[in-house]
């Protein structure tokens, strides 16, 4: 397994996105998560492994069970990726708009 998987690769898969949504609501064991899907239990385990590797979910031992919960810090990183890019264009377009408004009134 490739250990250097990146976060984007991890969330590219629809099942993994569904798992993230599930554990976002509450922490769950692998069994409970698997019960929500039609896929085989080992497949869900594989997905959980990838999500854990990317630190999108965190496993936590609770008695005999392992509960998976969302790592909000890592999820925020994804949004933060796009936000500076969006902000850069927003600033540019705001400037464009005000320059062209002036341009119009000068005419």
């Amino acid at each position, binding site marked *: 397994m490739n250990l250097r998987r*990146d976060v*984007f*690769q991890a*969330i*590219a*898969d629809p099942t993994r*996105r569904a798992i993230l949504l599930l554990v976002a609501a509450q922490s769950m064991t692998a069994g409970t998560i698997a019960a929500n899907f039609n896929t085989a239990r080992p497949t869900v385990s594989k997905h959980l492994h990838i999500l854990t590797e990317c630190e999108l979910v965190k496993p936590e031992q609770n008695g005999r069970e392992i509960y998976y919960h969302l790592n909000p810090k890592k999820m925020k990183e994804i949004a933060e*990726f*796009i936000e*500076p*890019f*969006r*902000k*850069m*264009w*927003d600033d*540019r*377009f*705001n*400037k*464009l*708009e005000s*320059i*062209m*408004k002036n*341009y*119009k009134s000068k005419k």
Partner: protein
Amino acid sequence: MEMKTKVHAEEGKQELHITREFDLPVELLFKAYEEPGLIEEWMGTKVLKLENKDHGAYRFETSDTSGNVVFSANGVIHEFKPNRQIIRTFEMENTPFPVQLEFLEFEKLTENTSKLNILMVFKSGADRDQLLKLPFAKGINMAHDTLQKIVNKTR
């Protein structure tokens, strides 16, 4: 506050959408992309070359406050339809980033409002994600430049 500029980048895809509505007639919005002097103003870059025609080309260059070139980019204008569409390539010079394809659609909404739809197609999904990570560093640089300007003024 509503975000006027929207960026949509679906996971795992090699494309990116930018949309923005302007409080401007579509002709004025297009003009901001057509006239080198105006591009220089809102993009904050120098326009070295801009051939607004099918099979034309363009080149931009940005310098810092000391006059060192910090950014340069160029591309080929594949299609140029006034007030409607520009299809062009975009490549940053002296970077490992591959060329990207850009579709810019200018849409009239009302007499005084318009919309710009940009579709950027990258060589791969990974290249797109790399680019998205860029503004982090760039934002720091720009903040640095602003700081530098203030410092220069107070001298």
